[in-house]
């Protein structure tokens, strides 16, 4: 019972994380109240869109599409209220992989590369400029968040095993060697699916997280995370520290993915975890033996 009490936020967060995956899968089981992916979805008829996807769309097409704007504002408003990077730690399935890779990095990490704090903002900027220049929503094209949620919502991507189109293109009979040609074509496409899946991108990110840098993708590369960091900075929902109870034991640092955000508050210069990189994952709140850390509403500047 004590364990549950000490981990109540973590348990809640795990339930939400698994719940999101199950929610994405509901159309497969025949429910109809929800559909879509983390890029854009619809729940009880209300359309919701990732505000970063809206930015990408707007820059790529150079037009503002009003229904898309409304659906993006709904999501933006929600994350403004609960804290921007709540998306990362509570919703995004990639974060689950990051949490696993964090543990594995301690065991198997061979490099200890530390990307700079500003890297993700550079990535964000470069991708938005690329969207503008190439007239394609560049990040939505390669987005690991999109790929993983598509693979959850639509079933795992084995598109390469589909051989209809390839066979239809090369007409075997015309060459008079129909049988050999068909068999060859079929074999080729059947093993090729292993290399065709978009999931390789997710796997590459996972390996970099494990071997090279702790939390490389979520912490310092993902442009959606960077976008939500900016939202988080302005959000009123933040972690609050009670300096009178804090003993500076450092337990919170051990459980925090982005432990640099705790430096200033624990030192005593500020009462709030102001850094936008904080994901409100509540690990520190669970870990604090003195209950000095709490979730609070920062309404006026203190």
């Amino acid at each position, binding site marked *: 019972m004590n364990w549950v009490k000490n981990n109540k936020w973590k348990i809640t967060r795990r339930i939400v994380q698994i719940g999101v995956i199950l929610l994405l899968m509901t159309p497969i089981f025949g429910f109809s109240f929800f559909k879509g992916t983390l890029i854009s979805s619809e729940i009880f008829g209300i359309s919701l869109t990732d505000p970063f996807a809206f930015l990408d769309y707007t820059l*790529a097409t150079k037009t503002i599409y009003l229904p898309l704007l409304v659906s993006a504002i709904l999501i933006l408003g929600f994350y403004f209220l609960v804290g921007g990077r709540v998306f990362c730690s509570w919703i995004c399935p990639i974060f689950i992989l990051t949490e696993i890779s964090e543990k594995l990095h301690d065991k198997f990490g061979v490099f200890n590369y530390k990307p700079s704090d500003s890297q993700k903002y550079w990535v964000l900027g470069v991708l938005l400029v690329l969207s503008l220049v190439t007239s394609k929503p560049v990040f939505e094209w390669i987005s690991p968040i999109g790929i993983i949620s598509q693979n959850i919502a639509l079933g795992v991507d084995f598109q390469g095993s589909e051989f209809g189109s390839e066979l239809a293109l090369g007409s075997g009979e015309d060459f008079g060697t129909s049988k050999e040609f068909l068999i060859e074509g079929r074999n080729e496409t059947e093993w090729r699916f292993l290399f065709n899946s978009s999931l390789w991108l997710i796997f590459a990110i996972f390996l970099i997280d494990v071997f090279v840098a702790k939390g490389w993708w979520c912490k310092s590369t993902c442009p959606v995370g960077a976008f939500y960091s900016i939202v988080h900075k302005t959000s009123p929902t933040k972690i609050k520290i009670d300096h009178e109870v804090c003993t500076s034991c450092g337990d919170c640092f051990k459980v925090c993915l982005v432990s640099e955000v705790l430096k200033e508050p624990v030192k005593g210069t500020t009462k709030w975890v102001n850094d936008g990189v904080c994901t409100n994952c509540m690990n520190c709140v669970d870990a604090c033996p003195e209950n000095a850390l709490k979730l609070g509403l920062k309404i006026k500047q203190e």
Partner: protein
Amino acid sequence: MDRRNFFKKSFAVSAIGCASGFSLLNFLGGENKIYFRPPGALSEEDFLAACIRCGKCIQDCPYDTLILGSAKDGKSAGTPYINFRETPCYLCEDIPCIKACPTDALDHSLTDISKANLGTAVITDREACLSLNGIRCEICYRVCPLIDNAITLNKQENKATGKHTIFEPVVHKDACTGCGICENACPLDNSAITVIQTQKGDKAKHYFYLNEGVTS
């Protein structure tokens, strides 16, 4: 650097290299083929700009016609496309794919599905076509949801036998939606009728001259 460490590092680097290599080759390479998009899709360039790869149209397609582009589809990764030979578009009257689209990649002003323009069916293999060989096939004509509008039968004398009729299927570009039901139904191993991408409303001048008696 000791040997153990060296092996560990080279393993890590090669594993990452393989995984990122596969994905990069796929995403940047891509197949050089024409992708047939859902009803109401903008022109290919505009469609690729406006589609945010959310996958909702694919989820809402009741016939599983729409296929999710995977990494091997290059710049079409994550976008919906149709393989008519696998499953054609059955032209739902309420057009759920367009309703599902959160952007204007699928044109929301298209409400009459018979005005959809996925492409145009064309008899691409006249030598293989059974009907053109004098056999009473005409499957493409029978299955066409716009029968007698999009596909009609043109009767001609069968010179090979001298006493039979050839029922030639003729596709009319204005009416054809490019749904691909004919391509899907063609009984040949390689469909003799295929959907190709065309622009509507650009009939050649000689067509008016010959068929409508006017010059435009």
